């Protein structure tokens, strides 16, 4: 009774090559460019100890006499500092590389935390329904009604007051991951819950229940893998958001300390010098931030278009 010919089973790589994702990526110049830019920035950021000519965290290399030197295309530049120096005499190229690394670290870390919390809560709310759903979603509503900034200010103030600001600056990266992660998990929870509600009524979930599987296994083994595409899409947007949030917090002085600056704190540090003509201190990290966030957002847009099943089914 079986069909006579048995074609060979395609491997994972072959499946990917045949997929719509790869097909549309090959045809979309913007997506290719954005991915290239993003990957370059990530590599450059995490390879910063190798790429940067100086270690900006090491105070011995910093000479205050070198402060506010302009980048190479402006008169009065110093050939040691390609992009000039900041107010403290740190090489701007090095500090931007290190700053990008900090920003990305916080962005990824915060999104990981958000995803962990949001996916778990969203799955539980959507699949178990009833009171669990009501409780978790009200919690999410309450969480969302506090803005990220407010949470950050309160947490930052409390930690600084109880542990001292030296402690705060020491664990600033972790604190920021925690704050941004905690503040924005409801985005994930809501997205996941919505797609769980759609998946839950499909017959394969009923089939798993008829089989006698436990709720936890159905949730994680059957429902979760089928809600991955919206999670994927929202992750790109959330990384961009987290980087922006971090920059905003740092700009307000609630984020990374001057000694271990992120892109946001670099912008803030340079902001005071715009008036005195040293615009590069703030504009160069600003441009890096814009390019980074823009490339992530454009990638996210492309992903959303590709992964929207209603668009590509026809």
């Amino acid at each position, binding site marked *: *009774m079986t*069909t*006579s010919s048995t074609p060979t089973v395609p491997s994972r790589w072959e499946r990917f090559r045949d997929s719509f994702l790869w*097909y549309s990526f090959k045809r979309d110049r913007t997506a290719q460019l954005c991915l290239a830019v993003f990957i370059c920035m990530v590599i450059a950021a995490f390879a910063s100890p190798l790429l940067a000519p100086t270690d900006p965290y090491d105070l011995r290399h910093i000479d205050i006499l070198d402060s506010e030197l302009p980048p190479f295309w402006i008169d009065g530049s110093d050939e040691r500092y390609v992009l000039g120096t900041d107010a403290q005499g740190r090489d701007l190229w090095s500090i931007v590389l290190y700053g990008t690394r900090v920003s990305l670290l916080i962005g990824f870390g915060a999104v990981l935390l958000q995803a962990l919390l949001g996916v778990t809560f969203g799955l539980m709310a959507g699949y178990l329904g009833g009171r669990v759903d009501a409780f978790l979603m009200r919690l999410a509503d309450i969480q969302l009604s506090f803005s990220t900034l407010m949470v950050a200010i309160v947490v930052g103030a409390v930690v600084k007051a109880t542990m001292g600001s030296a402690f705060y600056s020491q664990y600033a990266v972790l604190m920021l991951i925690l704050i941004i992660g905690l503040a924005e998990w409801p985005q994930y929870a809501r997205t996941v819950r919505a797609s769980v509600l759609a998946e839950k009524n499909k017959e394969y979930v009923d089939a798993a229940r008829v089989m006698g599987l436990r709720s936890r296994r159905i949730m994680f083994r059957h429902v979760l893998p089928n809600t991955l595409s919206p999670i994927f899409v929202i992750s790109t947007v959330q990384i961009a958001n987290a980087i922006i949030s971090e920059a905003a917090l740092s700009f307000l002085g609630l984020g990374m300390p001057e000694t271990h600056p992120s892109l946001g704190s670099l912008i803030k540090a340079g902001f005071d010098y715009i008036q005195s003509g040293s615009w590069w201190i703030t504009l160069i990290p600003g441009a890096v931030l814009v390019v980074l966030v823009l490339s992530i957002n454009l990638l996210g847009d492309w992903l959303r278009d590709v992964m929207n099943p209603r668009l590509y089914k*026809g």
Partner: protein
Amino acid sequence: MALLEVSQLDVRFALRQGEVRALRDVSFTLERGERLGIVGESGAGKSVAAFSLLNLIAKPGFIAGGSIKFEGQTLNTMSERGLRKVRGNRISMIFQDPMMTLNPVLSIGEQMLECLKAHRRISSKEARSIALDKLRQVQIPSPEKRLEQYPHELSGGMRQRIIIAIALLLDPDIIIADEPTTALDVTIQAEIMALLLELCEQHNVGLILITHDLGVVSQVTQRMLVMYAGRVIEQGPTREIINDPQHPYTQGLLNALPQMATPGERLNQIRGSMPSLSNLPSGCAFHPRCDFINRTNGQPRPACTEQVPEFVTSGNCRVACHMVAEMIEDRRLKEETS
């Protein structure tokens, strides 16, 4: 001249895997007031055929060849403006899902009047009376009230009646009905089909009924086409095909119906499944599933696997099958010798 004449219709879809031919060499005619059934399983191309008649195929599909002539005008080369005069006016369509035609935010009355006014210069009052008349024809109780109602307030059967009323609004010459009762329950389906049949006979309207249900086709239509993998494989008077199918696929399809078997016995199944259009078998597309090709010596006939069968005339039917062609040839030779 027939009212509708389709010849050598070829429809293709430009997909990323390459071009797929959804219809090949589809030819048929429809006389005024005639009821024609197009039968096939999903993927056979019957809906594509219906949509292509009015040039309604959505991208990436396109009509690559052949012609569709309605009263001598070629529809497939006509401008969009000219087509609009035919669509809905001279030829109207009924879809499987009534909500595809009905706009959920407009009342039934608004939709009917809009349709009338788009094609005719008449006053609202006249339009209203025509609409009411059509609603009465489809036996809808309290038609005045229905005009004010919205589609979601009506049941499935009622909606399909409204759709038929809308299809009849402009007294068309042909109604194309694409699986009009598939979404409905058995008892409602019987009512709707009976109504459609009655109306077509009364007003001498031609009907092209697209369905997978052989029972419905046998009750409603006079002639039928059987489609398989984008081709017509058999066509002729409905009764003759149902009572004496020639093509092995048609035979298999009829024999697979539970009502043709003794209760409790095995059903006569056709093995395998419909090939995908992008990967058609060579020769006769049905040959991998056909039981007759290797009756002679256990080997598939080379003709079936290599050559696309031509139509042969058998009685009042036309069949595209090598085996039937051979049988007819044999019979002719025997008659000649005797």
